[in-house]
């Protein structure tokens, strides 16, 4: 059982008034992205806000029709499934949403939030549902007093946990977590990570974990893809993250927010001007390799393709292999 994303492209047309024809170039949210996630695999998708990772999450959970490309679930396109199959898909592939303040209906008690999951996918009776909910909360280490509360009575971390509980109420085979750690304190983030690890080892579900910093997925995921402006720049195993063998300058920046890394990054190197649009490599404007190799022309001319550098380590950069030789 695997999820496969094939050449996914999504354009958002600019808001069109009457009389304004669509000559305005549409915003490319996702630009020809393809990857696949094996069964029981935790796949991390890292990138800045607005790089299209949320768009990918929403198309994988069939909330958004891509402009081109396809998403296969067990080799079957989720957009051409028949009703019965699709309902099963809805039950097997569950998502955690990004914004804890808005993915819970402010007027619904937590009990009913969880209860709705069972109501939709099972034919349990009221009492059984309550029972199941209580078991679930016990498993997630949530206090039962939350059941009677409304979302505004919970802290962000607790809302996050409720979101996780809502997704895992009926154990899915695949979990899509969109920024599950955003806006959390370090300690709460840690705790949530631990919970997810524990449950993943218990239930062995695969997951697509989306985050904006590399650290939070470090000891959660098995494979990581780094996105920038709608493209995947680097795709590697978590091992190469642990022993710091990542090559793309952008990934190095992301990694650099670790202590001494941050130090060197912040102190060495100059503040770069704000990024403009280029036909060439999208990362050109803030690329330090580009500086050190004194401005090679292929970076400006062509958008680099994702190609294998070592075994299961792919990079989309013209200069990375040169940089590797120089080491």
């Amino acid at each position, binding site marked *: 059982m695997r999820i496969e994303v094939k050449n996914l492209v999504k354009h958002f047309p600019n808001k069109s008034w009457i009389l304004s024809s669509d000559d305005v170039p549409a915003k490319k949210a996702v630009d020809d992205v393809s990857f696949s996630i094996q069964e029981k695999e935790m796949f991390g998708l890292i990138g*800045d*806000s607005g790089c299209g990772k949320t768009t990918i999450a929403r198309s994988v959970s069939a909330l958004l029709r891509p402009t081109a490309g396809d998403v296969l679930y067990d080799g079957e396109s989720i957009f051409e499934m028949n009703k019965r199959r699709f309902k099963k898909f809805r039950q097997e592939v569950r998502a955690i949403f990004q914004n804890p303040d808005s993915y819970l209906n402010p007027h619904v008690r937590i009990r009913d939030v969880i209860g709705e999951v069972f109501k939709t996918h099972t034919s349990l009776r009221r009492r059984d549902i309550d029972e199941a909910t209580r078991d679930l909360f016990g498993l997630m*280490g949530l*206090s039962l007093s939350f059941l009677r509360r409304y979302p505004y009575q*919970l*802290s*962000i*971390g*607790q809302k996050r946990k409720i979101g996780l509980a809502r997704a895992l109420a009926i154990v899915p085979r695949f979990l899509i977590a969109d920024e599950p750690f955003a806006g959390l*304190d*370090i*300690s*709460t983030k*840690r*705790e949530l990570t*631990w919970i997810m690890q524990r449950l993943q080892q218990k239930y062995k579900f695969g997951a697509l974990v989306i985050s*904006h*910093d590399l*650290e939070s997925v470090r*000891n959660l995921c098995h494979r990581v893809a780094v996105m920038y402006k709608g493209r995947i720049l680097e795709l590697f195993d978590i091992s190469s993250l642990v022993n710091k063998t990542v090559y793309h300058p*952008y990934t190095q*920046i*992301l990694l*650099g*927010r*670790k*202590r001494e890394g*941050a*130090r060197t*990054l*912040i*102190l*060495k*190197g*100059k*503040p*770069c*001007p*704000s990024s403009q649009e280029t036909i060439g490599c999208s990362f050109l404007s*803030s690329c330090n390799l580009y500086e050190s190799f004194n401005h090679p022309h292929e970076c400006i001319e062509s958008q680099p393709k994702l190609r294998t550098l070592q075994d299961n380590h792919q990079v989309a950069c013209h200069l990375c292999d040169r940089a590797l030789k120089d080491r």
Partner: protein
Amino acid sequence: MVPDQKLNHNTTIDRPLLSVEGLKTYFFLQNDFIRAVDGATLWMNQGEILALVGETGSGKTITAHSILGLVNSAPGIVHGKILFEGRNLLEGLDRFCRIENHGETEIVRKDLKGWDKNHQRRLDSVRGRKITMIFQEPVSSLDPYYTVGEQLSETILSTRPGESRSNARDSAHEWLKELYLEPPTYYFDKYAWQLSGGECQRVMIAMALAPRPELVIADEPTTALDASTQTEIIRLLLELRAKYKLSILFISHDINLVLGFTHKMVVMFNGRVMERFPVESLRNGSCEALHPYARKLISIDEREKPLEGDDDLNLAGRKEETQTVSSRACKYLLFCPYVSELTEDLSNRCKSSPPPQVQIEKDHWVSCWRFARKA
């Protein structure tokens, strides 16, 4: 760029530029006080970068707002001293506010109008002139109805009265250039909602630096930004600090980030300062965290397994318990791992009165009764 040694042996003169003593900022909600800041004490020297670290709700932002007098919900600041360049910004304001303690219950009598009038008058020469601020959400802290350039030149005009508009425009352009917003003419006529977060934050920095302040309060300036932009912004800040001899009060919740470039670090929890470190020696391991909370916060990245009671750190779930504890007790009492092995009188002290700040070594202060006894 900032040369390395400038950070290592800090070239700071030991004259406290800003010192906050026993600051208390309360809010009143549903018949109860929210003690956002409850007796916070911190100080920073001329030309150094002080990191104010804490988790959400630890009152670090409220502290910053209190320093600049931006707290506008009642009762607001009720007690404390804010000394800037040796001058108390709350001079003689205590006659407008009385705190009465009847056992556990606390009554605050505050003449909001009188307090406000005098406080604003004291702030006028400082706020926006000597102390400026950089905010957390750059986009929403710029007025969407005026162009960036207008707001920048407006700020410049307000700090230098008698300046002609054209001069203000020119210096606004210079400042934009200084922050690598090239070409300045392009950015001058942009609105905040037409720029990216990073660009907006640069504009905010320009506005903060244009009056040539002594102290810049940076309230989580990089939290809302992307990973790659964060480092740029911090680089910029450091570069400009070196250029204009600024002191920076850097508020953040991200210890890894802060350890990279600051001189001193102050850890806050529930409106009180728990511990104060010299960052350099903390980085090279020559000094380690003593307060249980600080240790938990700093070492949290090395650990793979949770300590017990890690999930208790957000208080929202445990409100009822916090109410049973006296408001004067140590804020960390509920979570302190040493509670069991405390002696009788010590635990009584922890319950009854706020712990004092004890100096362990140079620039290393802990506020915990256990060390108070040792000292």
